[in-house]
């Protein structure tokens, strides 16, 4: 199969190391700025929601992390696919990083969803479609992390572990829409009407802007962390290479 130029370049660790080193400060500062603006705006300046009062302010944490949790799974599965097809070592390292950050984001989305549920629905946990799918997504992430963890040891064993994690991530990708649709169908059969509250909250423009900034900020933060963690994985897996030593000592 003909390898596209972009992927070919990703196969070169020194190239990735150099480019990510240049990108990271920009992404880090941008993420920091965007998130601070979004959260200060959302917490202190956006107006109160007519129905939910101030508890709705959790949206500025909940929705961005939930978006990243799902998008991050697809990033992970994509790196897994590229790794399985073209055997690019860098993708293996990126898959490991994506699994960890994605799991952290999924945890945050679940946690903030549960805490948001208490003032809104009067209960910490509701078995509705979105929460349940998010929980299952969390389990899928933990499965990938668990596989990577279980295959620690020699280098060949680690590589086998990343292959296993890639296959699992791909199978999970096929399954996520199926799981979501089934859970959605199942819980919509006997859903009490009171829970529909958050579904169609007409969100005002003045509330929407900080939300969009928060989502973009989280994406940038995700990219920043992904590059950073991949660099760290690269540093430890290639620690005895001359180019890496040169790159480190140049700083």
């Amino acid at each position: 199969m003909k390898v596209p130029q972009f992927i070919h370049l990703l196969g070169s660790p020194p190239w990735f190391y150099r480019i990510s080193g240049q990108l990271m400060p920009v992404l880090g500062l941008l993420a920091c700025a965007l998130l601070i603006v979004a959260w200060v705006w959302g917490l202190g300046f956006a107006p109160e929601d007519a129905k939910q009062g101030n508890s709705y302010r959790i949206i500025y944490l909940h929705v961005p992390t939930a978006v990243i949790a799902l998008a991050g799974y697809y990033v992970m599965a994509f790196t897994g696919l590229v790794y399985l097809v073209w055997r690019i070592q860098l993708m293996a390292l990126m898959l490991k990083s994506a699994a960890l950050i994605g799991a952290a984001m999924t945890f945050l989305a679940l946690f903030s969803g549960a805490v948001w549920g208490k003032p809104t629905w009067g209960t910490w946990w509701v078995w509705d479609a979105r929460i349940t799918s998010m929980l299952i997504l969390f389990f899928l992430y933990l499965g990938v992390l668990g596989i990577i963890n279980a295959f620690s040891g020699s280098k060949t064993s680690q590589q086998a572990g990343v292959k296993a994690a890639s296959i699992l991530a791909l199978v999970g990708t096929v399954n996520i829409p199926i799981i979501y649709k089934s859970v959605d169908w199942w819980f919509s059969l006997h859903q009490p009407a009171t829970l529909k509250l958050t579904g169609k909250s007409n969100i005002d423009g003045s509330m929407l802007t900080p939300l969009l900034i928060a989502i973009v900020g989280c994406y940038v933060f995700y990219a920043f962390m992904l590059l950073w963690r991949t660099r760290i994985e690269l540093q430890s897996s290639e620690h005895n290479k001359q180019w890496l030593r040169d790159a480190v000592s140049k700083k």
Partner: protein
Amino acid sequence: MYFDSIQALLHMDGHGPYVWACYGMGALVFLGLVLSARAQSKRSIEMICASDVNDEDVQ
């Protein structure tokens, strides 16, 4: 600011504990990701400086 005072911002008409608990956990996780990455990065750079160069298996 939307709120009249810092107290009102912290209290948020009774929803404060929920909102601030979320953002507290959010700060914890975000900072945890950054700080653990920083610690690991330091460790791996030390490892690079300490290890012998072995370029035999470079493609």
